[in-house]
């Protein structure tokens, strides 16, 4: 298959799927108190057949270093996606991971530097900076095309899901327990899955500790 044909092929495939009357799954994630939870990665893993091979996107995902923070905090990508780490600060940063899905270290780098890495194993990668303890981020690498990260309203709308049985996976950096469930996607319908999650307390360091209180507070 020649390269120019690839998008066309994909398009045909997508149209065929549509024509095959794909379903929609709307997932709403709320915490114990009923508040919507952002930064939750929801994904559907087909149970009847192997997941279809997903071509990685052409453009890399971006996790930037800005204001001594990684932005965004949570990034969901398909297996094989490239992720670029630009430094928009005027100071140096370092990036490292010790996660099995992608252990790496990007050495201390100054303003304007940009490194790109391919995340080719499914899993969760915790990112840190050797210099700034407050800097923390996650890259979630998924082997299914059906995934989304919830925005601030806690609602993810997974469209174009072929009918069939799926496992609905849920992941959040502070998730307590595993609220995964099996669902059935039917044609031409929008099924709503309400997921209630328990979250551990947020232990992220404050970005700029003010040193007040003399350490006795």
């Amino acid at each position: 298959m020649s390269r120019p044909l690839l998008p066309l092929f994909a398009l045909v495939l997508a149209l065929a799927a549509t024509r095959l009357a794909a379903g929609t799954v709307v997932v709403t994630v709320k915490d114990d108190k009923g508040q919507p939870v952002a930064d939750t990665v929801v994904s559907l893993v087909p149970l009847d057949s192997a997941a279809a091979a997903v071509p990685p996107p052409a453009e890399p995902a971006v996790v930037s270093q800005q204001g001594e923070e990684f932005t965004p905090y949570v990034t969901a990508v398909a297996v094989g996606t490239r992720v670029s780490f630009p430094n928009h600060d005027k100071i140096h940063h370092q990036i490292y991971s010790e996660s099995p899905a992608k252990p790496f270290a990007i050495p201390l780098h100054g303003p304007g530097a940009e490194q790109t890495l391919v995340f080719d194993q499914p899993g969760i990668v915790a990112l840190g900076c050797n210099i700034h303890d407050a800097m923390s981020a996650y890259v979630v690498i998924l082997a299914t095309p059906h995934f989304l990260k919830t925005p601030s309203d806690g609602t993810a709308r997974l469209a174009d899901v072929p009918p069939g049985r799926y496992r609905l996976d849920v992941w959040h950096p502070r998730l307590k327990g595993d609220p995964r469930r099996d669902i059935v996607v039917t044609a031409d319908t929008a099924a709503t899955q309400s997921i209630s999650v328990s979250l551990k307390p947020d232990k992220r360091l404050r970005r700029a500790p003010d040193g007040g209180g003399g350490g006795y507070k």
Partner: protein
Amino acid sequence: MIPRALRFRRFSLRLLALLLGLLFAVLATTYLVVSRANERTAHDHARANLELTARIVSSTIGQRIESLAGNAKVMTGDDALKQVRRTGNNRTLASLLQSFSTRVNAPVITFYNADGDLLATSDPAMENENADPFRLLIREAIDQDLPQHTGFSYLKQELHVLIVVPYYAPYPNVFGWFGLAFPIDRAFAWKIRETTAVQLTYVSLDPPDRPRVLATTLPDHSLPPVLAAVLAANRDRLAHTLPPPTEIVPLPDDRYVTLIQFRAMLGEDPVALVLQRPLTPELRSARDLENYLLLTSLVALAAAAVLALVLSRSISEPVRQLAAHTEKIAAGDYASRLTLDRADELGQLATAMNQMSVGLSERDRVRDLLDKNVSPEVAAALLRDGSALGGQEREVTILFADLRGFTTLSEKLTPHELLTLLNRYLDRMSAAIEAHGGVIDKFIGDAIMALFGAPVAQADAADRALAAALAMEKALVQLNTELAAEGIAPLAIGIGVNTARVIAGNIGSHRRLNYSVIGDGVNVASRLQSLTRTPEYHTNVITSAATLAARRPTPPRSPASSPSSASSPLPTFRPLGTVPVKGRAEPVEIFAVG
């Protein structure tokens, strides 16, 4: 009665006041001594506690210093730091120091190059000028080749403890310095207060007239004027490096035992560390003890009051009884006896009073007896001066009377009946004798010896005696009439009357004296009496010529002048001749008296 009641009350009050006063003095002294000792102990305890707290403060600071210095030594080996150092980017270094600051909980971390220039600080608010105290420490550490150095200073106008630790690359090459600091602030003061319960205040004495509170656990964070005054007063001691003594400073809520220590500052005037501990909690257990003591004292005082009242009553009541009894005795009641059931002096006094009553009643009885026998004048004279009556030769008329046939009578009657009869007889006879001014000298069984003209001389003693004899006869007739009515045989009597010169006086031992007479005339009178038994004489009364001679001339006698003349006719005398009397040469001429 009222004065006695007052006296009684006064006595009990005096005893009460004495006992209570003594007890109160003892208890009050005890209370004061205990109270003062307690206060001193509390002060000492508080001072010891404050001194310990001062050491705890130093040790807490020391531990923090060691902890931060240890952390700095770990930072020295941090690879990220070395990477950042290689970039030469001090802003990155500053952000790394912030990470360190959070990691090791160090409020301030600064970094200096080997020359002591400030490269980066974790606290963006810290100005370069605040680096001076660190530089001072670094210079001293370099000069003295110290592995670390610390001191007190102000950062951002606040009291801090500063620590400098060398940055080795590698050891022992010093390529820079860590400067760490933590504030001595209100949180620190409260941390100490939580463990020691001591009020803690750091005060800047610069300028001296306006001390500034740097950190305190005192309410409203201001220095009470009284404490400021104490500090000002003790500031002079600083110059002489004398430790100020503990003082008791009155603050609004309590009195505080106050300890002041000075802390040297880097290139500045020392600051004062004021430690204070309230006295009341220290005294609480002591106060409990004192209250208990107070309660016990009050109970003791009350008990003493009751005891004093009981005691005073136990003394005053018998005294009152004794007084009442004395009044009774004074009123002449010798018969009643005072019984105090006690062995003490009052009991002895009561016994003595009873003995006195016995003595008095004995005396009274004696006087009574005398009254029966002699005229009151004679009795009084005898009682007044018995010796005046002794040893006089004088003329007296002696009367002897004897019951005839008494022996026969005694066989018929019981002893009791006999005695009753005898007394009845003697009573009548005595009455007759006394009615005529005679004195019963003695009773000798059923016989009576009576005197006329003694102990008080009587001019008509002989007349009286003869009249008495006739009266006795008459009285016996009367008695016999009564006895006849009772079925008792009549009594018979014989009387002898003689007048002679005899010795009159008190005769007997020194224990027992009887007024009597002795002499031949007495025997004659007795002999005359016995002669009445001679049947031929036909008389019951026989007298002697001496008595007849002693009679006063008969005619001029007014009926009222003599008690005998009115009731009895003049006696008649019938001569009976002469009879010999034993012991006398001359026989005695006798007469029957009718």
